[in-house]
């Protein structure tokens, strides 16, 4: 099955780090500082990226930026039709979202359905002043009118290709790969 797979590394460890540094500055620039700013990472890849952004932004601003974790499984639009019951992770947003500027963080932006679910979930937690979206990779093929405010890299892809963001915290190495049959 794995044969004829054409795997290409499109971003390495340093590339990911530079992207996140730039995004950290862009977030601060757009929001004019870290006032009322909170990060919410979408399980699972988005959580690690959000943690890294949290470190960078907190260091730049010299203040602690709050971080939440969101599992969007219960808000998926295919949950009642899919035969698989996806494993459910814990959601942890231990702070009030009212009037906060929330930056949602995810690894890959694809159809936009995950982000739709995430926005629905966030709104159940309160009434944020605004919701912004930061992603490491935007691979196109949107099925909903959603776009990211902060993008690490635009990666035009075919529908049959798979884009994976591997991160040290869960895969033991930092890299973005695209694979597809040749």
């Amino acid at each position, binding site marked *: 099955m794995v044969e004829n797979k054409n795997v290409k590394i499109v971003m390495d460890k340093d590339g990911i780090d530079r992207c996140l540094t730039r995004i950290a500055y862009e977030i601060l620039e757009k929001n004019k500082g870290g006032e009322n700013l909170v990060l919410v990472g979408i399980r699972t890849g988005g959580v690690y990226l959000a943690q890294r952004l949290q470190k960078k932004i907190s260091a730049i601003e010299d203040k602690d930026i709050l971080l939440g974790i969101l599992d969007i499984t219960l*808000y998926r639009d295919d949950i009642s039709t899919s035969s698989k019951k996806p494993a459910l992770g814990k959601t942890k947003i231990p702070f009030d979202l009212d009037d906060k500027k929330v930056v949602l963080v995810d690894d890959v932006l694809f159809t936009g359905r995950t982000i739709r679910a995430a926005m629905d979930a966030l709104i*159940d*937690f309160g009434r944020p002043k605004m919701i912004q979206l930061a992603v490491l990779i935007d691979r196109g093929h949107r099925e909903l009118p959603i776009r990211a405010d902060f993008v690490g890299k635009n990666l035009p892809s075919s529908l049959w290709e798979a884009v994976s963001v591997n991160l040290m915290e869960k895969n033991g190495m930092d890299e973005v790969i695209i694979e597809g049959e040749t």
Partner: protein
Amino acid sequence: MKFEKKDILGIKELTVDEINLILETAESFLEISTREIKKVPTMRGKSVINLFYEASTRTRTSFEIAGKRLSADTINISASTSSVVKGETLIDTARNLEAMNPDVIVIRHSAAGAPHMLAKLLRQSIINAGDGAHEHPTQALLDMMTIKEKKGRIAGLKVAIVGDIMHSRVARSNIYGLSKMGAKVVLAGPATMLPRNIEQMGVVVHTNLEDAIIDADVVMMLRIQLERQNQSIFPSLREYSQHYCLNRTNIQLAKKDVIVMHPGPINRGVEISPDIADDPSCSVILDQVNNGVAVRMALLYLLTGGNE
């Protein structure tokens, strides 16, 4: 891991992996009940029928809240206000309910095996909310969740279950579950309340409370079913409580960090003294209720959402 079961009929039928999956899923659901908006859209458009042929406060309310927090429509039917009083049989009632197309039927019945019969008969998922003296799987799951939450594990713990084992579906489901999860289960009760050959379930049996709770990590007290007083299985409530009531004195025999559980409703001063039941340093009775909603949400979630 994928959950393949159509129904939840008993703990006996569940594997260790399935129990772990249910408990982990339930832990994730706990958070929803702490939100200001205690609702997620997961089961929108699904309906859950609670069919209760026996009295219940906790279990029925818990299932109803679990369904509602998942956005399912929940419908409660209790035998006393349904066509059952007109003489309709369980099978006829079930077939009629099936025709209304619910997704899950939760049933409590005084006859052991009633949920199993419905499961064979109907295409809907059936959850056993207590069948006779047989099983009460959701209670055992919430008990295991509570033990895991408080002790961090189940394997290796000594759990004493005390009271009327004979008539207790809670005891039977917990014996199956806790033994599967690697706990050491010890039972205690008067000989008239201990089923013959219960040792075959892999438990140690005592006829006095003190022997059973020595060094216990968990003590689970069962309700004395007052309605059975006339069946001459115990002489009087007072005599029962003299020997089997958990109190300040005998609890010292258990481990220092012992937790005390009770499936409810409690008879204060009969099987448990009020100061123990209300002592937040050992009693986890209300945590059990809280976890019960999460466990039932997890089961509804895992059972629905498949391709029809």
